[in-house]
């Protein structure tokens, strides 16, 4: 603990001194925060099985793989390695449940299960937050305040829809599609699971889903909640395993629809594999969002938004504001403010309640990001990272910004999926739109200005699924989310999201 310095007497007022070094703020350790670990028990088992037909079953292969805590590289648990036989069993269970129970059940009955799942998840929120943080490396304050509450919110929201489905498409009748196959990424394991499952089952579909190889833990933990909620066997089936198992799941003939969230690269492979079939598809893929700051924006709040845009979840967000487009007249001020703010971000143990930036999900991902840092430097961009010590074990990277970036630099074109911000300047509104749209992606964008009419103009001209105005990374179950161009198609959330899980008659 630092010692309390005695109160200094106020110095005599002095005339302003010119010509001294530029004033600086000191963010030192005069008042350091002590460790504040979240202590809730994640209630982990040493080994987790597949969840098929309402039961936990061993994989046909008899093989298991380790789930690693990226914050300290320790093994958390063994996860079942699902393969072709397991995928087959899961689809059979799902089809049976859909045809005999779930598809026929009145919506208001289905709603009860969804409400129950949402409430049970709320009851066990701290346990799930800790488990998610251990599995993924994201800070506990994010899992506690965002991932878990938002996952519950998606179940609540879609529970509310389940008995009102006739209003999803007024004048038309809606019916479930059947069995849907879903593959989700590692950046928001529990939340993506809820995004995918809740609308599907609210509509009367049954689900076979594969969580990401790196982050399967909370998915199988949620299966415990499905059991506790009495969800009929087979409505949701969870297969853990490698990427190849995800491929089998997507290609399975029983799936009436497949939904994928992940990289554009894998999305293209999946789309090729189902080309020529009747399968419906929803793809939520990569992004390289522009966060556009005009000179009349409230700059301190814009800086907060920039940080929330790219350093939330260590930048491992498909809609991350990874390109900062800042008007030339305020660029220096914004960068200076940004650097000062970054110096107060706390990087470290994700389980510490005061940690702002946690660990990168895996060694591979860390290496990929570091590769991009090298590319940025080699191509002549100027890299800056705040000073500070990182834990010796675990996959950590300080928040990184690049200045002097142009549209042609690779770090401005390719999705890095890490805490790396490329700062580009512009002069006019037209130039901002042009640069923002000059990307194969189109998932999200942000606009910071005091001028309302400019927000409206930008929101129509930016080719992005979401345009945030004077905020960033805001989500709500009622708000549809999805992309333009190579960021995918189909929407998740809201009435539009439900439309993607039904057939209209």
């Amino acid at each position, binding site marked *: *603990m*630092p010692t*309390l*310095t*005695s*109160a*200094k*007497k*106020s*110095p*005599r*007022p*002095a005339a*302003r*001194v010119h010509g*001294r070094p*530029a*004033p*600086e*703020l*000191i*963010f*030192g350790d*005069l*008042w*350091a*925060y*002590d*460790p*504040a670990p979240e202590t809730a028990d994640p209630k982990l088992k040493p080994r987790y099985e597949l969840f098929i037909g309402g039961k936990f079953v061993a994989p046909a292969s008899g093989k298991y793989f380790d789930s690693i805590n990226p914050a300290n590289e320790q093994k958390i648990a063994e996860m079942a390695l699902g393969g072709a036989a397991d995928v087959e069993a899961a689809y059979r269970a799902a089809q049976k449940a859909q045809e005999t129970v779930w598809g026929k059940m009145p919506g208001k009955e289905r709603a009860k299960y969804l409400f129950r799942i949402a409430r049970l998840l709320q009851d066990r929120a701290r346990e799930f937050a800790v488990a998610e943080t251990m599995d993924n490396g994201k800070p506990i*304050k994010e899992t506690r*305040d965002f991932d878990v509450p938002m996952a519950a919110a998606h179940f609540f929201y879609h529970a509310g829809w389940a008995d009102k489905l006739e209003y999803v498409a007024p004048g038309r009748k809606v019916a479930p599609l059947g069995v849907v196959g879903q593959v989700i990424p590692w950046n928001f394991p529990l939340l993506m699971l809820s995004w995918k499952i809740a609308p599907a089952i609210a509509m009367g579909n049954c689900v076979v889903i594969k969580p990401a190889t790196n982050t399967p833990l909370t998915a199988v933990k949620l299966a415990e909640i499905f059991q506790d909620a009495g969800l009929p066997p087979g409505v949701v089936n969870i297969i853990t395993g490698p990427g190849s198992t995800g491929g089998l799941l997507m290609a399975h003939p029983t799936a009436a629809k497949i939904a994928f969230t992940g990289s554009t690269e894998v999305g293209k492979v999946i789309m090729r594999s189902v080309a020529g079939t009747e399968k419906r598809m929803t793809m939520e893929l990569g992004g390289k969002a522009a966060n556009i700051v005009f000179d*009349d924006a*409230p*700059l*301190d*709040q*814009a800086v*907060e*938004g920039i940080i929330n845009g790219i350093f939330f979840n260590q930048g491992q967000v498909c809609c991350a504001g990874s390109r900062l487009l800042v008007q030339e007249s305020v660029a220096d001020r914004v960068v*200076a403010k940004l650097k*000062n703010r970054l110096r*107060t971000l706390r990087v470290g143990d994700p389980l510490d*309640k*005061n940690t702002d930036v946690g660990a990168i999900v895996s060694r591979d991902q860390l290496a990929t990001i570091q590769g991009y840092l090298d590319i940025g430097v080699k191509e002549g961009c100027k890299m800056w990272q705040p000073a500070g010590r990182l834990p010796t074990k675990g996959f950590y990277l300080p928040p990184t910004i690049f200045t002097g970036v142009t549209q042609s630099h690779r770090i401005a074109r390719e999705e890095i999926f890490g805490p790396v911000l490329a700062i580009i300047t512009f002069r006019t509104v037209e130039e901002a739109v042009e640069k923002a749209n000059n990307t194969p992606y189109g998932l999200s964008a942000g606009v910071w200005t*005091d001028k309302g009419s400019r927000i409206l103009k930008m929101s129509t001209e930016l080719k992005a699924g979401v345009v945030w105005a*004077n*905020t960033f990374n805001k989500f709500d179950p009622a708000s549809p989310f999805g992309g333009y161009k190579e960021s995918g198609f189909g929407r998740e959330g809201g009435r539009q999201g439900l439309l993607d899980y039904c057939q209209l008659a």
Partner: protein
Amino acid sequence: MTGTAQAAFRRLFNEIGTVDQVGIEERVAKYTTRSLKKGSKLFGLKLATSMVDLTTLEGKDTRGKVESLCQKALCPHDDRTVPTVAAVCVYPSMVKHARRALGEDTPVRIASVATAFPSGQAPLRTRLAEVKGAVADGADEIDMVINRGAFLAGEFQLVQDEIAAVLQACGGSTLKVILEVSELETYDNIRAASFLAMRVLRPNDFIKTSTGKTSLNATLGNNQVMLEAIRDFYLDTGTPVAMKPAGGIRTAKQALQFLIAVKETLGDEWLNNTRYRFGASSLLNDLLRQIEKERTGAYQAPYYFSEAAESY
């Protein structure tokens, strides 16, 4: 608002920038999720104690009340590792009593609210005479109110001239300029008034949120607006201005949240009572209660630490 007043505001906002209400309130909400444990909590509690301007500003104040307040200021707790508070804050008529009670050689400073506190609605010469009188009676610090009427009418020069006149009347005493944020209404206006005041002030003079006499006083939001104004002004000019939130901070928990805002906005150099103060009365006993809790691991019975500031 007249056309000229509007133009004056427009010019000032263009110069210093504006504040987004939703954004800044989101920012300060994050301070409340910081978790202080053990040593860092105790350090924060003691630091906050050393920053208290122990205040009594009532019509019924007497010499006796001020004397007991001074005693509490000098010796907040039996535990001698607890620092003295920064200052006592009294009406001008009570300054001489405070000086007699504290003596000349004391770590506790005497602050006095002058300039027709809280409204400021007296002729300038009356306000200046009040300031000079308080300084002559021994006030180390003067808490003045700005002319809110002039500010809202866009007469910025008048606002600044009055601050400059009071500053001169202060002589060597520290000046604290009360913006009375609840009467300025918007965050933009609070930022603007902060800049107007800072452009006149000396290093380590204060800007202060409020008188404590209106419905809305210090909040994390207006504290943050003023801290960011101080930061921007400091980085531009090199002049460090100090900050005092006042009114409405009653619990140790609140005080720690305000200090976290200071730590993460202005940094270490503002974490002392030369640069940051709390205008408060009942806060002190809650700080002491929490310090005692950290020391013993248990909360004391309520009669050990009165919640009524009356009973210091």
